[in-house]
């Protein structure tokens, strides 16, 4: 399967056409997505038109964009003008946004070809895509296993070669965990690096868009395009995208990489084995491994499951059946609200709305939401101390390789534990990425997570590139 950078070079240089590249990917979708269900919607006709336009432009002598002809899949929680955007929820089924998300505009401008909208856990709440209202996505490496979530469709689309790259969103690990489970690269950039305008909100203070790609270089290339200040997002960092591709070959000689001494328990031995191998690889490449303590790590999961649902309870209140999306009619207003939301939302979404509503309620606010914010401050401080000693930190991305369908659906807490290593990054607003690093149990891929401090993407990519070279 062609890498993103190969496509850009080929289409820009005339050895490939955008049309042939897109047809190749559409072929694979046609052949296999019936089984995988990575997509909620394949926009084949529009993709062909867009590809033809790019080919015509290049033939006419126009400069090829930095993503010319690259087939890209979008998680179905990013708004696309005139194209259904569902968040894999019945409540938004059929809704066509009147505008494009900022990232979508940037992709189009760069010459990317959008091939479709990918499946997710409803409103990005979940770690397996089993919470999609439209049925789960299967892991292309073993269809009896989940692809992870919530951006399972985007991870599977890259893993299966349906798209050269895809975008996902990461609130507590929703890019990194499925990337690990599907054996691809997934990046959660620093909060505020990529505009959230047009990303349907789950938890606004944690959500961040990022890329899925086949390798680290592709991820750096794609992130350079989608990052950068956006005046439409008040939380967007007012500075240009960080240059990443040039640092990929710098190596890690002299870098200090952190090993967390108080990592939460519950990680499978096959995964821990790969983590040790990763430290060895970095040490061999000239990095120093330094022990760091993150004592607040153990509270992060709890804090996250108060903060994220609290914000979600507010963000999802707008789905009331009044203005858009699905409505279930009833004799009076309150009954209409209740009937619409009862039938429109799935179990997990309802669970989190209730959790969050409770956490913000008068009389409980300080004990739950207020305390969770304090933990958030603590983990931020822990990381700040650690990053005085190291340039990056390594942890597993997920405690286990991809698990079987249904193995955690009856136990929400077991499912929540999938994100134990990824959540702290979101609470701190830091960048982190998952890089495939060999195989674990049942020959399924293991992802290693590289963490860095705010705007520390260059360090993070240097380490990730080194791991990729060593794997």
């Amino acid at each position, binding site marked *: 399967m062609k890498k993103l950078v190969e496509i850009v070079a080929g289409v820009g240089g005339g050895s490939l056409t955008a049309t042939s590249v897109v047809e190749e990917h559409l072929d694979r979708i046609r052949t296999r997505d019936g089984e995988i269900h990575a997509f909620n919607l394949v926009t084949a006709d529009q993709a062909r038109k867009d590809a033809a336009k790019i080919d015509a432009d290049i033939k006419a002598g126009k400069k090829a964009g930095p993503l010319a002809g690259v087939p890209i899949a979008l998680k179905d929680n990013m*708004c696309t003008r005139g194209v259904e955007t569902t968040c894999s929820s019945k409540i938004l089924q059929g809704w066509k*946004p009147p505008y494009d998300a900022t990232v979508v505009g940037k992709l189009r401008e760069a010459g990317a070809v959008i091939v479709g909208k990918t499946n997710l856990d409803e409103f990005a709440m979940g770690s397996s895509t089993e919470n999609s209202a439209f049925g789960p996505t299967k892991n292309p490496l073993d269809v009896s296993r989940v692809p992870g979530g919530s951006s399972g469709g985007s991870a599977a689309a890259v893993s299966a070669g349906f798209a050269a790259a895809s975008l996902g969103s990461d609130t507590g690990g929703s890019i990194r965990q499925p990337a690990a489970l599907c054996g691809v690269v997934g990046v959660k950039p620093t909060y505020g690096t990529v505009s959230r305008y047009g990303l349907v909100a789950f938890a606004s203070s944690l959500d961040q868009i990022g890329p899925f790609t086949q390798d680290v270089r592709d991820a750096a290339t794609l992130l350079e395009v989608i990052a950068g200040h956006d005046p439409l997002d008040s939380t967007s960092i007012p500075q240009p995208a960080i240059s990443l591709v040039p640092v990929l070959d710098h190596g890690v000689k002299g870098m200090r990489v952190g090993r967390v001494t108080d990592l939460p328990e519950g990680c499978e031995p096959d995964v821990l084995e790969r983590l040790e191998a990763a430290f060895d690889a970095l040490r061999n490449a000239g990095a120093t491994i330094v022990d760091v303590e993150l004592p607040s790590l153990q509270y992060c999961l709890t804090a996250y499951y108060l903060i994220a649902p609290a914000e979600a309870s507010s963000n999802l209140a*707008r789905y*009331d059946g009044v203005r858009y999306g699905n409505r279930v009619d009833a004799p*009076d*207003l309150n009954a209409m609200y209740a009937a619409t939301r009862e039938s429109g939302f799935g179990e997990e979404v309802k669970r989190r709305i209730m959790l969050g509503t409770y956490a913000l309620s008068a009389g409980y*606010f300080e004990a739950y939401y207020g305390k969770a914010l304090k933990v958030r401050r603590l983990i931020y401080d822990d990381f700040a101390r650690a990053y005085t000693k190291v340039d990056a930190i390594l942890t597993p991305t997920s405690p286990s390789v991809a698990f079987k369908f249904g193995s955690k659906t009856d136990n929400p807490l077991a499912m929540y534990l999938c994100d134990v290593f990824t959540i702290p990054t979101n609470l701190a607003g830091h960048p982190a990425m998952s890089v495939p690093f060999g195989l674990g149990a049942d020959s399924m891929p293991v992802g290693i997570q590289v963490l860095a401090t705010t705007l520390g993407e260059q360090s993070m990519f240097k380490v990730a590139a080194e791991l990729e070279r060593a794997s």
Partner: protein
Amino acid sequence: MSENPVLPNGWQLVVGLEVHVELATKTKLFSASVNRFGDEPNTNIDPITLGLPGALPVLNKHAVELAMRIGLALNCKIRPCAFHRKNYFYPDLPKAYQITQYDHPLNVDGFLMLPGEVRIGIERAHLEEDTGKSVHFGGSSGRIHGSDYSLLDYNRAGVPLVEIVSRPDIRTSEQARQYVAELRAILLAVGASDAKMEEGSMRCDVNVSVHRFGTPFGTRCEIKNVNSIRSVGRAIDYEARRQVELIEGGGVVRQETRHWDDASGRTETLRTKEDADDYRYFLEPDLVPLVPEQSWIDQVRLALPPLPAARREMLAELCGVDKNGESAIVVVERGQDDYVREVIANGGDPRRSVVYVQQAFAELGPKPRVPAKDLAALTILERDAKVTSTQAKTLLTELIEAGGGDVAAMAAKRGFEALDTGALEAMVDAAIAAEPGAWKKYCDGEEKALGALVGAVMKASKGKADGKAVTALLQAKASA
């Protein structure tokens, strides 16, 4: 502290006001949609206004500046602040939360002075977004429950508001009316809002409680739907009496929100404290804290125009009228005090200039099209008794209609001419001779008899005599 005349002895009224004003910005508080009243429904909307999935708010800097002007004009401190979400479900609230300021408002701790040096504390003046508008059809109450259907207009949704919360320092309904009037004058003066209560760009919620002198404040009720300065007074008087009667009859005032019905002149329960929403306030994660730089605050403060109280004082001094009198208040409220100054600079009689403008320029705005020199000329014609006050009024009307002109020529064209004192005196003497009975009564102190005498002179002069001058002459003769 003055006692409220409408309350029985021993009872004290306590009032605090929450006034919402729509800011006169071009666009909304968090989006580029136009902020304009009266447009076709649902035309000034966009993804942010409608709270579409994925849309994000971006703070309008001009709205912040207008809010700061209000704060500074009300002697508030401007503070680093933040926005919160106030969560509740209602169809005209598109996101199901209102972005507002909660425990960190922009303006805090100011005051407003009422005539007579009565100081009303301002607790806070914070920024927030307005809701859309619902119109309910069918049913009897005009509210959503029981109606057949409702229509929604989101043009107003997201319009910037400042909510100005007074301290409970108001003790009479008259003070409350003065407070609203003065606040309105300040808002107009600083250009923050058009403050039209009839269009809803200025809305009052009134908190009313009563207590006996020397005891703690009573339980308050919040009254909504008070849509004019007159209603502010009426609603407070009604509610105060209701509460006193309730307590004196052995009842207890419940904390509740009440609805003012202007037609019936009564308040009625809208909702009680028990069924109040839990708004689940939390910091709005889509926005960053608002920290106005000192240089910006200073700039806004320096650019602040003179405020109504100072302008009334200046005008009153210049014209020789009462600074709390009708002329000064009305002319300053309309922003016509600069014009009056210009008329006087053109030689106009000071007192007549301000009175003419007060009486005849209601529709002409802050920059009347009548040239100041023409109005000045008219005041001089009257002052010098070249025309009577009645004739002057006729000429004033003509001057406004024509948008200016040579008033002396206008007077001549209408045949208005001054009667010289000799001619007038002869006519007065003739009238005394013609009405001996009336003259005797008038000399005996019967003021009513004056009418017949003045009437006779006016008739003889064909209306050219100045009534005041005639009266003065008659008085002089009677007391001679």
